[in-house]
């Protein structure tokens, strides 16, 4: 599904190059549950963002299915991303001015899903995450766990083949955190590919494979 070949990323600042990622070779097959671990500043989130086509990389090749992402224009990247990828952030990143319902609706609007279909998709999601009663509330009226639920629901609503979760439980208490992890596991069991970034060894164990990053290099691959 994802093939990274010699991916590099650095920030050029006058005379100094700050390396974030160096020579990353990585392949993720459909249906996997991969955990990326490593200390702060190792480049975990950057790698995830690159996979999610949210960030540029300085060198190397990236194939998503068979599309060469490194050669695509922004518009086509957005299209790929829009079709296949759901993203979950540590800080939830809901739009404050929109209600739960409207936040869920946003990706569908960009995907140009028809009104009636939109309604039923959102209704399904609300049901599945048990947040029907919350649909007219704004994000700041919800607890952190509920906000993350909405964020996950929003990522899932386009039925992505790949979910990228950047420390999805980082801002949650442990009970809420495991709830979210169980959810990801269930999605993976249903066939969705999941890549998560985490600090937490326990949560890393949900993954079937762990990749460890250190200073931008892949340290070792445990299968």
């Amino acid at each position, binding site marked *: 599904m994802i093939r990274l070949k010699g991916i590099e990323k650095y920030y050029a600042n006058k005379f100094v190059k700050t390396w974030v990622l160096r020579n990353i070779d990585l392949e993720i097959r459909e249906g996997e549950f991969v955990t990326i671990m490593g200390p702060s500043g190792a480049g975990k989130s950057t790698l995830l*963002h690159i996979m*999610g086509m*949210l*960030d*540029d990389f300085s060198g190397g090749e990236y194939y998503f299915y068979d599309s060469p992402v490194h050669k695509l224009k*922004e*518009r086509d990247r*957005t299209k790929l*991303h*829009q079709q296949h990828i759901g*993203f979950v*952030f540590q*800080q939830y*990143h*809901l*739009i*404050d*001015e*929109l209600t739960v319902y*409207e936040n869920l*609706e*946003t*990706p569908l*609007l*960009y*995907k140009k899903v028809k009104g009636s279909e939109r309604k039923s998709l959102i209704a399904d999601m609300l049901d599945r995450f048990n947040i029907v009663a919350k649909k007219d509330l704004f994000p700041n009226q919800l607890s952190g766990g509920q906000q993350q639920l909405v964020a996950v629901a*929003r990522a899932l609503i*386009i039925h992505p083949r790949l979910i990228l979760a950047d420390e999805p439980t980082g801002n949650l208490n442990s009970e809420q955190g495991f709830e979210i992890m169980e959810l990801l596991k269930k999605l993976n069991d249903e066939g969705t590919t999941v890549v998560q970034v985490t600090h937490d060894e326990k949560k890393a164990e949900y993954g079937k494979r762990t990749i460890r990053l250190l200073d931008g290099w892949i340290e070792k691959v445990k299968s």
Partner: protein
Amino acid sequence: MFKNYFKIAIRNLLKYKVYSLINILGLAIGFGCTILILSFIQNELSVDAYHQNRNQIVQAYLKGTRDGNTNYQSTVSPYIGPMLKTEYPEVLDVVRVYGLQEVAFQVQDKQILESNGIATDPNVFDLFTYRFITGDPRVALSEPHSMVISRSMAEKYFGSTDAIGKMIRVEDRYDFYVAGVIEDVPVNSYTTFDYLIPLNFLRELGLDIEGRPYFPCSYLTYARIRENTSLAQLNAKVSERMLSEGEEITFDIELKPFSEIYFFETGGKTRLAVMSLIALMILALACINFINLSTARHMVRAREVGIRKVAGATRRLITIQFMGESLLISLIAAGIGLLMARGFLPVFNQMMSRPTYIDFTNPLFLTGLFALVLITGILAGLYPAVFLSRLRPVAVMRRENQRKGKATLRKVLIVFQFVLSIAFILCTLIIDRQTTFLQNFNLGVNKQNVLYVPMEGEIRDHYRGVRTELLRLSNIVRVSTGSRLPTAILSGSYFEWGVRDNVGRRICTTFTDYDYLKTFDIQLAAGRYYSPDFPDDARNSIVVNEAAVRKVGLESPVGKPFPFDGQDYTLIGIVKDFHHNQMLSQPPEPVAFRLSPDANDFMFIKIDPGIADAAAISATVQDIEAICRQFSPKRPLRYEFYNDFSFDRERLQEVIRLMFTISTALAIFISCLGLFGLTSFMNQQKTKEVGIRKVLGASVRSILIVLTKDIAKWILLANVAAWPLAWFAMHKWLENFAYRVSLTIWPFLLSALIALIIALLTVSWLAIRAATANPVESLRYE
């Protein structure tokens, strides 16, 4: 999708109220001004546009050339009309129009003074489009005593428009019958009137309606010419013909297209251009606020953009969303602006002394307004939209690069706003100085406590009796007559005078009685004025002003012969030059004062200049009215104080001053709104800096300096740019005046000071709040 955009736009507007208020209020003011001016322009353009033949009609102008300057007069001799028609096949039809004085109408017991009538040729309705309610336009003015009246006049006298054949007694002497009723002349007409009578009737008043080529020049003359006639060629032929008359070599007739007359007469095109420019500037100031605040606020919206991009939004969609928001704001502002414009319309109309309507049904107005909303929305939204759509989602959400923006564009725009505001302030200061200068200018005429009364009817017939009675009142020091107010001696003629050299020179003439000079405290430079003690004065004496003596280069001419229009007079006195002509656009010209001891067009009554109390003056006026009533019981006395009299141009001057004052206030207000909004965002950014400085022991004063020194720098920079701009504009404008204030440095320094003070006041509240905030609070959230 648009519902989603709309919702978020509205919620953002409501959430950031200050920001929304600044944007919408500023834009609404801009739109309000623009709507008013757009309507005004549209009204101006529609003047006389309803005449179906308008493109075929021309008007004859008397064209005089003197010292390289060309003057035009709209009234020509009655001779010109028939001449054009008989001698030029291109001319299909001509109509002459004579403006009537105020006359008394009587229908049964109703007696009313009517001031707005014309005498004209019977074919007037062939040329001009006036709608008849009853009567036949072809014959309505065929009899000398027939009359066509307007709908309002018919309703006023007869209670309905069914007035055909009804009689109206005029001046208690002539009986007219109504031969037609027309709809009221539309307000968007340059010439309006309430009734028309046939030109032929003027013969009964002893007026010469055949005339000579250049006499008497008091008829408006219109002609309908064949389509596709070259006006230039026709004018050349007419010129040749007129010059061959040989009577007046300095005069000529020129035909001007009717469609250009209104702007030609009112000088309106420049005015429209200046007004449009002002409105555009105010709108531009408001747009700048919009751009500035939107970009300043990008941190707030950037996160949303990031999330939307993650959710699959393309750059295009983000751009559309933000453009949409700016269009929405523009639309809301236009709505409020429209309400504002409607609210201020009466004030505006009073100011411009022309009725303006906001015509929602007019397609030109609607398209104009719509285009304006669109352009404003796009212009104001383009930069923020492109700016935001370009953001990389991850960078935004990681809060990278957020403090880095140097905001150069914002600073440039703020400086630009202040350049305009300062230029506005400067122009207003200078216009105000010039206006005050003109108002206080020593005209050489004392207008204090002088009442002027047009002499009509019985008052004119019994002037001597009226005068004797008036002078019996203790408060009245002088009663005099003349054909003109001293500051309204305007119409000149060309003929030989002063020396016998067969050269026609222009000289203005006024007729006065013996006391004219004393009434207005006008000084003599040499000799004496007319006096009843010298019976010869009435026959062969003449008085001129200094300018006349200078013009013909006479040395101590008093007592010597003075030829005047073919006759020989003795010059008995020279009047000191005073400003006899309209405004101060020109220095005094030659003026001749002729003696006409009794009946003149105006009576001037001088009340004791020692009386300044308004109550005492009005009591005296009542006494005057009582005396006049004895002589003329039916006709109410019309009078005006000379001090209250002003020419159109003087009024225009006042309008210009008012317009600039208001525009300046609006410009400053909008700029300050923008400055306030921007400063509040900048201070938010600087909260941490201020907090750290305070923890390090900075005083409130030193922090205030940090927060405001940038503003002071910008204002000074703006001055540098605004000064030459305003200097150039005002230099040009002042060239219109023969007497003008000199451009000194003071208004420039004053405007700099005003701008600086206003700007510092605007930001100081925010700065003080920021500087006195508890540093622990501001640092906690970092």
